[in-house]
């Protein structure tokens, strides 16, 4: 074990000396602007969340204007994915997976709608508008209050009801769910 550690350390050192001048044979060095244009991922711990903020109150009219036509309302479902309700149905044969009943991270809601919705005009709203619609979806699913401010500090702290129910299956499905006994 100790020997392995020394070996690893010396390997890393070698690696460091060889790659002092990091070069690409045919690639071009990327600027921050190159990265910002293409990098839309935001993370559960808040990494890469943008400035801006909103509340459910502000989000409701935006949702009704931009989203209801395809996703319906909390009372009446629309043609596309249901975004409200379904609480307590996961694990039954009537599972209704929605933002509220299934999604483990609130940051995913903001991340997805900001880059992909409205479906026919993605990225067409401001960060504060997307924060507000996120707040509205969380509020209607009973997860936050109507006036709670959602921004890059508060969004990662939102606890989603189904968060504890996901099992890491890579590289191996845990024994109890494995078919290969």
């Amino acid at each position, binding site marked *: 074990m100790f020997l392995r550690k020394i070996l690893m350390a010396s390997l*890393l050192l070698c690696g460091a000396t060889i*790659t002092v001048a*990091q*070069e*690409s*044979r*045919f*690639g*071009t*060095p*990327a600027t921050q602007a*190159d*990265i910002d244009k*293409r*990098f*839309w*991922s*935001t*993370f*559960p*711990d808040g990494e890469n969340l943008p400035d801006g903020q909103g509340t459910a109150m502000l989000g409701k009219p935006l949702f009704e204007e931009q989203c209801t036509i395809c996703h319906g309302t909390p009372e009446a479902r629309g043609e596309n994915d249901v975004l409200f309700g379904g609480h307590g149905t*996961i*694990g039954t*044969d009537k*599972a209704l*997976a929605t*933002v509220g009943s*299934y*999604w*483990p*991270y609130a*940051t*995913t809601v903001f*991340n*997805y709608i900001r*880059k*992909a919705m409205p*479906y026919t005009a*993605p990225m067409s709203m401001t960060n504060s508008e997307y924060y507000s619609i996120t707040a509205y979806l969380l509020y209607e699913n009973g997860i936050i209050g109507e006036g709670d401010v959602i921004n890059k500090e508060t969004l990662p702290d939102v606890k989603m009801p189904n968060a504890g*129910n*996901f*099992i*890491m*299956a*890579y*590289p191996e*499905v845990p024994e109890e*769910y*494995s*078919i*290969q006994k």
Partner: protein
Amino acid sequence: MTEKNKTLVVDPLDQAAGNGLMSRRLFLNSAIAGGATLATAGNAFAQEAVVGEGQEEWTLMPGDDLPEYGDVSRYEKGRVKRFVAPPPGLATASLSGRTPLHLLHGTITPSGLHFEVTHHGIPDIDPDRHEMVIHGMVKKPFKWNVEQLENYPTVSRQYFLECSGNTRVNWADPKPDQNFMYMTHGLVSGSEWTGVPLSTLLDECGVSPDAKWIIAEGADSGSLARSIPIDKALDDTMVAIYQNGERLRPSQGYPMRILNPGFEGNVSIKWVRSLYVTDKPVMSRFETSKYTDKLHDGKSLQFSLEMDVKSVITRPSNALSLEKRGMYEITGLAWSGRGKIAKVEVSADGGRTWAEAMLEGPIQSKMLTRFRIPWMWEGRPAILQSRAIDEFGRVQPSRKELLAARGRQAYYHYHAIHSWSINARGAVRHVFA
């Protein structure tokens, strides 16, 4: 042959050069005309029929000019296609184009018949305005366009791609689906992919030893993102730029895509433009809301990335009935996301007895393998099944075993043994057996 009886009407447009040099095309045409004249001209031969009598018309004249881009026979159009007619009331089935496995042979799927699932449509990307950037936990970020990628030494490998939603109808549907094989197995295909190993590009950027995941994002209108484990990225993941010898098609990620051999298709990000090296997964919609497998106890499997060992008989199948008693070849496909297929067994009695099928080589890792076995059908009812085993001894489960372990709501990663029942008249139906 002599040309002496022939009169040529020369169209100036047909002249290829001065002093009578004509287009080669015209020569072909006039030769036919000449031939025809000759055949009827000589009275001495009048009693004798021309030798071509009874031949089909396409044998008796030169065919069409070569097309710029080859297509299937017009008689195959509409027969070999990617869609089944959507059920009445449903507007379209076009968000997933499915491979008609029951109509194909071999293991390579023609590019135009490769399955394809799109969540946000197919972008029409101008390659001159598309670049892929590697950034995050690297010493130095770089970017590449497709012409730059072309300069690297490439690798060409045959791999299957399968959507983890393939065969999902077998989880929850109360009745076995009868839409030929489109709905049950049409989301798996095999291709030769050519590209640059991702590890080559990562090496150039200098990946931090603390890196654990790479977040890949596409340039489609959903900027679809998935997290790739770093061990996979450094192993056999490639940035593919060619499929079956030609540049990727738009629906397959033109001009560049990620290809993770053996992984569920959704992770092989098409139209890739950002690779962010980091120490945690992004938890995108496609690894939380979708592509997670719901279990009977309310838990869900997440990052079930490697496709399970699986097989299916493609002939006979419910698209192809048996016409009469006699000897048939049972053939089908087997694959495993972890490696090579080691063995395929076939049963004609619903799983009571099994015989080992012949595997057609070369057997390649993470690629479709075709199996064959002769079968004498004596007109009795039968249930045909195939069961694949991979090089690690993983065995394709029965439907009962799979449902017992996972319940009926998993939606993704259905990979149980598939059953075709054959009745005394030779009609084939999909059954749950």
